[in-house]
């Protein structure tokens, strides 16, 4: 079962967002292609916009800035460790300091679960209609678990809240092309050495990151409608003040053609 490492980072001091994203795609991405090791898939999500917390919050409760989320997929946990902690340090592992504010990274090691959507193909100009679940706008939703809720119940409540949101947000129901739960693995608990290396002090822990795909940035309002409907789900399960979402443009760095196609 593949495991995915998701790193949400922000740019180092002194860089513009464009400079950061240029470096990430053309320098860091190239290094990863040159020194692939055991990476199965590598996708960068370049942030266009996003929101942190809620309108009810007087001020931000944590770092409220993310410029990209990179997703590295490995066939196994062992492949991930052998790639991220090679015997001889890789160029990619030493490159981060040139563009990222590494001590503020948010790392999630996750396992994916696909959530079916009612309309994976647009009604407008679907072409041959044989390609499903794609979109030019990818929304990454980091949902902080309410401290009082058990992890297992949190996932139960998310599923119910998602259902509630889909029922009460008709625009999102029509426009959501793909939805994937990225569920934090407990193996992530053992990243103490990495956190120490990057001088990360008590980084926020997210038990769930949900990826949503829409056709284009024009459909961002569908996600907003979905979010408001989700937040109206009656059972408290999330700390929305410490949750955030990012509108992103997906950049594929490494993805092989599936062997079974």
């Amino acid at each position: 079962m593949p495991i995915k490492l998701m790193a949400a980072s922000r740019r180092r001091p002194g860089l513009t967002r464009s400079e950061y994203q240029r470096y990430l795609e053309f320098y860091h991405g190239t290094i990863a292609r040159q020194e692939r090791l055991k990476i199965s898939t590598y996708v960068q999500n370049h942030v266009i916009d996003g929101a942190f917390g809620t309108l009810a919050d007087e001020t931000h409760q944590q770092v409220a800035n993310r410029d990209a989320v990179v997703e590295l997929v490995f066939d196994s946990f062992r492949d991930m460790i052998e790639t991220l902690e090679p015997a001889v340090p890789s160029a990619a592992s030493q490159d981060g300091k040139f563009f990222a504010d590494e001590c503020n990274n948010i790392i999630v090691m996750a396992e994916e679960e696909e959530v079916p959507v009612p309309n994976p193909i647009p009604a407008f100009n679907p072409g041959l209609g044989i390609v499903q679940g794609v979109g030019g706008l990818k929304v990454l939703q980091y949902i902080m678990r309410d401290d009082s809720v058990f992890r297992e119940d949190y996932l139960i409540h998310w599923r119910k809240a998602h259902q509630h949101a889909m029922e009460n947000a008709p625009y999102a129901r029509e426009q959501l092309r793909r939805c994937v739960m990225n569920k934090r693995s407990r193996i992530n608990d053992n990243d103490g050495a990495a956190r120490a290396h990057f001088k990360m002090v008590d980084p926020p822990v997210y038990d769930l990151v949900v990826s949503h795909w829409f056709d284009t940035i024009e459909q961002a309002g569908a996600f907003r409608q979905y979010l408001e409907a989700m937040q109206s789900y009656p059972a408290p399960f999330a700390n929305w003040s410490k949750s955030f979402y990012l509108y992103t443009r997906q950049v594929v760095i490494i993805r092989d053609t599936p062997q079974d196609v």
Partner: protein
Amino acid sequence: MSAITAETRAQKNYSDWYASTKAKSLRPPLTPEEEARPFSKYYYEEIPEPDPKHLKKMDKPCDPSLAIEPHQINDLLDPGELDVEIGWCNLENGAGFIANRIVYPEITADMIDWWFAWHALEDLRYRIWYPPQHGGIMVSPEARKRLLDPAVPFAEKNWGQIHHVTEDCNCGMENIDINFLSPKDIGFDMSRWKKPFVSAFAGGQGWAVTVDKTDMSITAPAVMCHIFRQHPDGLEHRTRFWMGYRLSNGMPELSLPPGISVPVEAIQGLARHNVKEFTRFKYFLPRIYAEFGGRMEA
């Protein structure tokens, strides 16, 4: 609106439960409320010592080439015995392997199904099982609903539910989250899931970390299987642990960093704990089942 009972009063939210585990790990005296529970007398019983010959088999590691790996779990449905029925070792890949076998003359499969669901509802129910090393237990509100749902059979109540136990397996008190699974979800071939090869089952995947957790503590995965079948002398209980493995979408995957092995002390410690807690179980379950069996409330 459901009535408030001892079984529902025990519910804590996650943060309150987690904050309580250090205190639980110190195995404090029973509270007045616990003393008043009808099964509190079991807490004060003398705990039977295991058969010395049985425990001695856990003194030294067995030959790892004779052990089975988690993807061979269906070998447990074969008639007869496997090469290692009692023993422990490090596998070649660094994982920890434990096998244990014990026959219960007076225990039935119904008792097993009942016990594994019943004991999750209160700290004291877990503590009376093996007072020297059991600190407490908690389930989530959603799990409690399922456990108390009379429409769910005892054998299925735990499927997909997590028991959060505080327990010492001879390496200090740990918080262990045991995600119980159905036999299908742990990887058994359900076309072979029938008597006389199997009569009851409890198992799943656990994550264990010290109650004194720090940023650098290791949260260790393990796959656990308790499978029971009829035997001429009663009910035969066969245990297997694979430490260092986690289940990922139902498939066991070694989750140790390269070059790392599960410490011998942890494997042997759990093996010895297993012999002791199930020796207690052998003598205690028939009696407590006679008093409280067949229902979740007490």
